[in-house]
C-alpha cells in the first residue's frame, strides 16, 4: 500500500518536474527571443548608420568648416569644436551643484530638504529638453541679447543634473557608513570626511555617472535650438587670431568664444537632414555616425571602468 502510494507520488513528482522543465525551456526561449527582438533595433540602427555614414567619412570631414549647401567638400569641424566647448561648459556647470546636492540627499535623506532635492531631481529628469531650452532662451539669451555657447552649456548642464545627482547619491549610499563614522570619530570635520574619505571611496561611481550624463547631454538637439543656435563659422583658431589682432587679452578672448553662437553635432545633423542637397544628407549621415561613435565610446568607457574597478576592489 505504502509502496503504491509512494510510486504514484513519485510519478506525480516526475510529471511535475517534466512540466516545470518544459515550462522553463519554453520561457527561456521566449525571453531569449524577446531579448533578441529588443536588441535588433540597436544593432540595426548602428549597422545602418555605419553603412550610410561610413562611406562619406573623409579626413576633411573632421578638419574643415562647412562649405555652402549644394557644393561638395567641407566638414563639420565647427560642430566638433562646438560639441567640445558645450560639453566642457556643461560639465563645469553641472558638476559642482550636482555633487553638492547628491551629498546632501545622501547624508540627510529624511530631512525635508533632502526629500525635496530627490523629488525635484525626479521632476527635472522628466522635463522635456525643449522646455529647458525655452527656459534658458528667456533667462539667458533674451537678457544677454544674443545666442551663445554659454546659454547652450547651461541648458545641457541642467539636462545632465538629474543623472549626476541620482547616480552620485546611489554611489555615496554604497560607501559603508562605518567608514564615515570612523573618520568623524577620529575628529575629522564633516567637510574633510566627505572630501577625503567618502568622495575617493565613491569616486569611480561618480565618474561613471558624470560620463553617462555627459553622453546624454552631448546627444541633445532640442535645448540647443533656442540657446546655442548654431554657427557654421565657429572655429577656436580664427576666434583667437581675430581676438589677438583686435588687441584683446586672453580673458576677453575666452569670453568672446563662449559668447558666440556654436554648433554641435546633433544640431548639425538635424539641420543637414532637412536640406534638399544630397551632399548635405550624406554629411548628416556621417555626422550621425561620428556622434553615435562618440556617445557609444563614452558609454562603453564608463561601463568598462565600473567593471574593471569593481573587479579590482573584489580581488
Amino acid at each position, binding site marked *: 500500500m505504502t509502496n503504491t502510494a509512494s510510486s504514484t507520488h513519485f510519478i506525480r513528482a516526475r510529471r511535475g518536474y517534466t512540466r516545470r522543465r518544459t515550462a522553463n525551456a519554453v520561457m527561456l526561449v521566449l525571453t531569449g527571443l524577446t531579448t533578441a527582438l529588443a536588441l535588433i533595433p540597436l544593432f540595426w540602427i548602428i549597422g545602418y548608420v555605419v553603412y550610410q555614414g561610413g562611406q562619406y567619412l573623409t579626413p576633411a570631414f573632421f578638419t574643415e568648416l*562647412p*562649405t*555652402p*549647401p*549644394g557644393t561638395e567638400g567641407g566638414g563639420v569641424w565647427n560642430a566638433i569644436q562646438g560639441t567640445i566647448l558645450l560639453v566642457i561648459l556643461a560639465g563645469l556647470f553641472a558638476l559642482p551643484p550636482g555633487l553638492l546636492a547628491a551629498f546632501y540627499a545622501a547624508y540627510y535623506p529624511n530631512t525635508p530638504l533632502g526629500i525635496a532635492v530627490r523629488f525635484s531631481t525626479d521632476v527635472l529628469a522628466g522635463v522635456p529638453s525643449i522646455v529647458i531650452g525655452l527656459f534658458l*532662451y528667456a533667462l539667458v*539669451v*533674451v537678457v544677454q*541679447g*544674443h*545666442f551663445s555657447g554659454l546659454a547652450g552649456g547651461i541648458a545641457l548642464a541642467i539636462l545632465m543634473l538629474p543623472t549626476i545627482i541620482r547616480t552620485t547619491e546611489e554611489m555615496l549610499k554604497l560607501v559603508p557608513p562605518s567608514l564615515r563614522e570612523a573618520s568623524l570619530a577620529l575628529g575629522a570635520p564633516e567637510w574633510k570626511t566627505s572630501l577625503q574619505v567618502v568622495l575617493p571611496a565613491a569616486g569611480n561611481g561618480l565618474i561613471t555617472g558624470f560620463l553617462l550624463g555627459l553622453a546624454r547631454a552631448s546627444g541633445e538637439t532640442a535645448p540647443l*535650438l*533656442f540657446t546655442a*543656435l*548654431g*554657427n*557654421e*563659422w565657429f572655429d577656436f583658431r*580664427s*576666434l583667437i*587670431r*581675430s*581676438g589677438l*589682432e*583686435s588687441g584683446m587679452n586672453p580673458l576677453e578672448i575666452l569670453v568672446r568664444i563662449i559668447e*558666440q*553662437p556654436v554648433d554641435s553635432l546633433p544640431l548639425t545633423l538635424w*539641420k543637414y537632414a*532637412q*536640406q*534638399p*542637397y*544630397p551632399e548635405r544628407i550624406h554629411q548628416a549621415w556621417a555626422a550621425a555616425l561620428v556622434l553615435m561613435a562618440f556617445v557609444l565610446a563614452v558609454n562603453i568607457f564608463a561601463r568598462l571602468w565600473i567593471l574593471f574597478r569593481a573587479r579590482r576592489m573584489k580581488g
Partner: protein
Amino acid sequence: MGKKMFLVMTGLCTAVLLSACGTAAPATVEVTRSVNQTVVVTPTADPNAAAPLPAGSVQINGAGATFPLPVYSAWTFAYQYVDPSVVINYQGIGSGGGKKAIIDGTVDFAGSDSLLKDEEYTSGKDLQMYPMLAGAVVPIYNIKWAKEIPSGTKLPVMILDRQTLVDIYNAKVVTWNDAKILATNPDLAEYLPGEAITAVHRSDGSGTTEIFTKSLTAFSPEWTAGGASAVEWPVDKAGNGMGGKGNQGVAAAVINTPNSIGYVELSYAVSNGMSYASMVNKAGKIVVASAESMSSAMSDFAGSFSEKLTADIVDAPGALSWPIAGYTYIILHTENMSDCIKAQKLLEFLRWALTDPGAAKQASDLGYSVLPEDVRDTVLGKLGEVTCNGTVLLP
C-alpha cells in the same frame, strides 16, 4: 601677393568703394581675379577711410526661415572674400522663430517667409521687412502611367490650369483622367490612369503652404479653406489627402505614393529630380516655373508694396508670370541696432547681396529668383533709410 596685402586692399575697398568691389567679385572661386581687379580701384580710395578691421572681428548673427537658408549660406560664404572682417552666421530655425528672435532682439537680423502681424510691429517698434528673393512653389506629381511609354520618347510635362488645381485640393477632381485634366493635356490623354489622386500637403505650419493656399484663394472663389500657413484641407475630409513634414517630407511622400500630387519649393523639386507641372496663368498662357516667369510675377506687383515693403505676388496677371510665388524677407531694426559697426557691415552685406552679379548668379543657380530691378531699387532705397544713433549708415 601676400595674404596681408589682400586683406588690406579688400578691406579698404569695401570700406569705401563697396559696390565696385562687389561687382568685381563674381563668385567664391574667383578670389584672386577679384583681388587683381580691386587693385585698380584702390588708389582712388578716400584717405580718411578708417583702418580695416581685423579679419573675422565682426560677428553678425541672423536666424529664421529655412527656405532661403541655402542661398544665404552661399552668400555669407562668398562674402568672407569680399569683406574678411565680417563673419555672418545665418541659422534656419523657421520663420516663426526668426520673427520672435528679432522682436526679442536676440539676433541682428531675421529671415522670414511670412509677414509680421500688426501687433508684432508694435512690440518691436522699428521693425522693417525687406524682400530679398522670391521662391516659386510648384505642383509635383508622380503618376503610374496607364500605358507603357514607348522607349526613346519622353512624355510632355503636365499642364494644370488654376481651377483644376483648386478642384484637386477641393477633392472635386478625384481621378487623373478627369475631363478637366485631359482638357489641358491632350498629349497625355492615353497615359493618364483612372486612378484616384492622392493630394499631399504640409503637415506642419509653413510659409510654403501660405503661398500655396493664398494662390488657391486667388485662383477661385471655390477655395474656401483660406490662405494661411496651415489650413483645414478639404481633400483630407474626402479621404484623399496626405501630410508630409517639411518640403522634404512632401517630396518624399509624393515619390513614395503612386498617383499623387504635392507642392514644394522649386529647388526641392529640382534637386529631387521630380516632375513638376506647368500652369496656365491668369492671362491664360502656359508658363513654367523659372527665373523669367518669377521675375515677371514680381514686376507685375512692383507697385503694390505696402509701407513695410510687403507684397503678395500670387496669381500675377502678366502673360509670362508664374502664378504660385512668394517673397522671402529679411527683418531689421531700423533705428535701434545696438552696435553701429555691426549695423554698417550688415547693411553693406545686404546691399552686396542685392546688387552683386555674382551673388545673383549664386541665387539663381540654387533655384531662387532674384528681384527685378524696379523692386530691388525700392528695397535699396528703404535700406538707405536705416540709421544707427541717428546717423544714416548707407549713404
